[in-house]
């Protein structure tokens, strides 16, 4: 990994003083993840360039004692790209310059100099725009070159790597500080665990500029690598004076961020992945509406023992728990991790015994018969079926309608017709990567009616979300009532 810093300040070789590195020698520093070399490819009075070359030892990273958390493969980009390793190296090798100390040229420290920094390769999966949004507000002229994945395979398209050149009149310590904070933000994959002192580091390094940066929320979020509590902590302290309107905004944004990433600090964001909820965020609380609608149906039908099938992290469970008319609630999900989060969110370990007895969380799959689901009178299946392969829906239908056999079933699923209203959604793609299908109203209704006939239910349909005259509402809900159950009511 190569970082070069150039200046045309006269005499340019003063850069050597500022960096505390002699332009005439190559200097090598040993770091706990490899080595750093500092040398000057050019050092004239007119222009001087210092290069920081980082040699990351990947094999040691995997096998060695100082085992880095996010690097579990030998084949990775760490040795080649600007990452938090570079920030750490800068802090060690250029610590005086970063902290604005220079005994021999004290005035230079406080002087804005014509500086240029070049990062040979930095990953930025969010694209060039994001790079610019990070650096331009800080007054840099930004030049960007994006590189192809493989020149022999042009059909593979662009790699997420950029060569970035930043130019501005800045104090050297400012430039280094900006790089120190923003490189890991771009890379989005820290190499060590996030702890409380990360918040302090961010606050210290961000003083005087980060609080004014228009992307401060995203910067904090990425820097702290998606650790929600740390993010909130940092944001609170960062904008302590502005509490009020701002806090609400932050809360809303934090909610939008993909929740499954909370524990997954090692996972890189998939290329082209658009978080489901983020896609729909323009419609305030569509998901809330869906959950509320499902809950209302169960309540109206007098369900006492209810199932939340595909309960995920427990949003609906939480709402159901608050409703006294539900005597017992069972949440099922195929993701064990989601259940663990649900357990935490619902504070199951702290609920009083009577409340605790009202709820059961189980790990299971809706394509397998499950005796634990029998004996309930209502079931909510909110935004779940579209995550099953269509060929497995017949198994799902039998598991739910034949074996679990509740009196009332609520199924919601996206209305594909509405997708045209999402500007960022390309035609022919789904709202979420894991969706196996998205149905039009007609497709959903014909499936639902066939299911109802097959298993002796009646079904009615309700749109969810703002309705458009042409394409309907963003989400659709089918309400199934067991025919025998209706008879009983009439009798």
């Amino acid at each position, binding site marked *: 990994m190569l970082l070069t810093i150039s200046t045309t300040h006269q005499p340019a070789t003063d850069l050597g003083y500022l960096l505390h590195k002699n332009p*005439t020698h190559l200097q090598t520093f040993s770091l706990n993840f490899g080595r750093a070399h500092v040398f000057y490819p050019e050092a004239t009075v007119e222009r001087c360039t210092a290069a920081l070359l980082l*040699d990351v030892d990947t094999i040691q990273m995997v096998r060695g004692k100082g085992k880095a958390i996010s690097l579990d493969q030998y084949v990775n*980009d760490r040795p080649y790209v600007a990452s938090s390793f570079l920030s750490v190296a800068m802090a060690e090798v250029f610590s005086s310059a970063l902290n604005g100390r220079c005994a021999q040229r004290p005035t230079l420290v406080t002087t804005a100099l014509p500086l240029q920094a070049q990062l040979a390769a930095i990953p930025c999966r969010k694209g060039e725009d994001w790079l610019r949004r990070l650096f331009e507000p800080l007054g840099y002229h930004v030049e960007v070159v994006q590189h192809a994945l493989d020149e022999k395979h042009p059909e593979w398209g662009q790699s997420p790597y950029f060569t970035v050149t930043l130019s501005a009149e800045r104090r050297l310590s400012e430039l280094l500080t900006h790089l120190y904070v923003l490189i890991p933000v771009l890379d989005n994959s820290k190499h060590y665990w996030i702890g409380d002192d990360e918040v302090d580091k961010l606050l210290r390094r961000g003083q005087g500029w980060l609080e004014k940066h228009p992307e401060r929320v995203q910067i904090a979020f990425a820097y702290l690598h998606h650790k929600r509590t740390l993010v909130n902590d940092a944001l609170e302290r960062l904008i302590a004076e502005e509490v009020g309107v701002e806090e609400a905004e932050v809360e809303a944004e934090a909610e939008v961020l993909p929740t499954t990433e909370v524990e997954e600090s090692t996972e890189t964001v998939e290329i082209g992945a658009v978080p489901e909820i983020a896609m729909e965020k323009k419609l305030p609380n569509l998901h809330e509406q869906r959950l509320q609608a499902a809950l209302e149906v169960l309540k109206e039908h007098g369900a006492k023992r209810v199932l939340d099938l595909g309960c995920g992290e427990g949003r609906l469970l939480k709402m159901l728990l608050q409703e006294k008319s539900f005597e017992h609630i069972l949440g099922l999900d195929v993701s064990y991790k989601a259940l663990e989060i649900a357990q935490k969110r619902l504070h199951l370990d702290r609920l009083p015994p009577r409340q605790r007895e009202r709820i059961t969380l189980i790990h299971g*799959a809706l394509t397998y018969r499950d*005796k634990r689901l029998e004996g309930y009178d209502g079931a909510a299946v909110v935004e779940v079926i579209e995550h099953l392969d269509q060929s497995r829906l017949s198994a799902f239908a039998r598991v739910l309608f034949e074996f679990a056999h509740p009196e009332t079933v609520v199924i919601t699923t996206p209305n594909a017709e509405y997708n045209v209203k999402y500007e960022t959604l390309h035609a022919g793609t789904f709202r979420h990567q894991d969706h196996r299908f998205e149905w039009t109203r007609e497709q959903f209704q014909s499936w639902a009616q066939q299911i109802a006939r097959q298993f002796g239910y009646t079904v009615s349909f309700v749109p969810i979300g703002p309705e458009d005259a042409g394409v309907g509402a963003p989400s659709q809900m089918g309400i199934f009532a067991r025919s025998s159950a209706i008879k009983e009511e009439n009798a």
Partner: protein
Amino acid sequence: MKITVPELSLVILIGPSGSGKSTFARTHFKATEVLSSDVCRGLVSDDENDQSATPDAFAVLNFIAAKRLAAGRLTVIDATNVQPEDRKRLLTLAKQYHCLATTIVFNLPEKLCHERNRERSDRQFGPHVVRNQILHLRRSLRLLKSEGFHHIYVLSSPEQVAEVEIEREPLWSNLKSEHGPFDLIGDIHGCFVEVRALLQQLGYTLSIQEQDEPRYQLTHPEGRKVIFLGDLVDRGPATPEVLRLVMDTVAAGTALCVPGNHDIKLLRKLKGKDVTLKYGIVESLEQLAQEPVSFTKRVIAFLDSLTSHYVLDNGALVVAHAGLLESMHGRGSRAVREFCLYGETTGETDEFGLPVRYNWASDYRGRAMVVYGHTPIPQPTWLNNTINIDTGCVFGGHLTALRYPEKQLVAVPAQRVYADPIRPLAVNSEPATLTAQQQHDDILDVADVTGKMLVNTRLRQQITIREENSIAALEVMSRFATNPKWLIYLPPTMSPSETSQAPGLLEYPEEAFAYYRAEGIKQVICEVKHMGSRAVVIVCRDEQAAQRRFGVIGEGIGICYTRTGRRFFDDLELEKVLLQRVHAALDATNFWERLQTDWVCLDCELLPWSVKAQSLVLKQYAAVGAASRVSLDQAVSALTQASQQGIDVTEVLQTYQQHQTLAQRYVEAYRQYCWPVASVDDLKLAPFHLLATEGQVHIDKDHHWHMETLAEICRADERLLLATPYLTVEVDDPASVRNGIEWWQHVTSHGGEGMVVKPLDFIANGKHGILQPAVKCRGAEYLRIIYGPEYDVPENLTRLRWRKLSAKRSLALREFALGIEALERFVQREPLRRVHECVFGVLALESEPVDPRL
């Protein structure tokens, strides 16, 4: 005094404190068979005499007793049990687990009890306690019979106690030592002509032996034995003749018989009980009236002697008229008898006024095959290792026999309709598209794949799947895997050969040969390892065959799925074309006829790598290549510039130039496994195991057979199908070994990933059991993709050599055993859940943490 105790019974000792129950129990039973209330009191309260702990002590005792009885173990209760309510609780338990209850009463002189208690320092209670107990005991004596004890023994003196000998008696239903072969015959209902014809067709000779009175004699050249499944009588024209046949052959030991509900009803009538004169009994009575009274007496004695069901052939076969739940196998209780006669009903009646039957077989999970009759059906079908063979002969259907162990059905048609069924024989007259088993298999039960699983395999005994792994597998299986009916196999992981110490190399053929040589294997086969993605391909002769054999409807003629059970192609049209091409190649080589099959399961590699691993190639491999190129080019250029300025950077520059070279070689390594796929013609399918066809898992053939049979098919479509080049090596012959090494060098220096070395036999045993079915030996350049561009720099290689293979090898063996087990179960037509637990197991094991680079 001899005391007979049924081998599975609850033995309840009754006697006051000090009557010697514990000593008696210790003398005659295993320590673990005896549950003592005193001991339980001690367990919960640290004091065996703490009477306040009694309720808890009995809760513990009951719990343990229940577990023992459920498991079919004789259990002795050592407590005073002098009160009827104490005994009632225990008798309920015995009934719940369908065990006979035996009691041994210690009705000993009061004085003796007092004396014994006095000798014990821990028994501080007064004499009134014992006096009371004896009072209750004496009152109980006459109640015991009506309380429901099967055997009652009363010991009245210490001498009698001392003389006791316990004899354990096998249950009447226990015929585990009878191994057959058997021919099981369903409901005859007085159809003598048909049963005679059926016996003849089964190869029996039926003759009449004239003694005092004529007697039927049945012989079979193979010494087979007939088992009649009951309902011999009623409705049909010749009930007495059928009875005579069955009675004579049972008496002669050439047949066995279990009673049916009609037989028992007739028995009750003959014994003078009042029964409804419906459902064909009138015919039986009329026919019997023609026979001498002595015959009727003989019938009564015979029917009275019948045992409700039999457990045969070491427990592998259970026969009962109306079937039997697993929990009732080999048990004796009224409930068991009732079930055997009537089966399970829902308590409702249908429009014909008949009880609605609950299909107990759909929940059956037992290992024993259960053969039964009772409910007439048009065609016998297997469901969960059970089969109903009552094909309604008396109603004009067939009389059916099942040959055991062959599982072959033999039937003769009824001569005519003798009676009209109350409920039409085939209410669902439309022909079922799937068999009962296939319909049942549409839905698997999550309970079978939840928690810690133990899977028994033929190759490697019991394999444990830990709960955390089954949790992971459930998620993957349900979110990504295809219809489980297709998943009859998942491939095992493969271990590399031991790490080579040769300079510049991590893997080298010598170590692979050495592994097998050390285990006493002479010949191995080296197969080119294709660098693509593993694919399991199932192709059926036509869509009907797919439906018939796999129970799938409208899913085409086959499937191509990945090592995790996921459909290989998102593009179903592409999959269809691929399967058609394989199908055509099979057609062209006369495969179906040669292997007498209408389906095949192939283990393959599908190329290019990039077709399945596209996102991995892009996100990881190409991306790292791009990053290295950009970064290293600039680093070298900056260093060169510095060098030109006269700064001494020689060493670093050289290092970076080397980085550059190795990164370029890494890029070249992955590139050759990637090419664009526009149509099926851009794909290559390389089958290397012909895993299974109808009736056979081809692990009894050596790898030459697999290679050659598959090569022939491949020749029929060389554009798509890729025959795997291979070489046989004699591991004890240095020249042959050298040849093998050179072959590997040649393969890997021409872009090959490497080779797979297998013992020539598909299943090979070494010094400590089954050997690795294959080890891989990968090429030096290929390993750059796995270990990183610079893995072979000496200082890196030294560190990388320290790798452990044992976890990977153990995993490979367990997965191999499970994969083969899945195929064998499928081929033997076992229920899908039995196949599924094996493939689920493979998937679960794959979630065990193992170094992914091995």
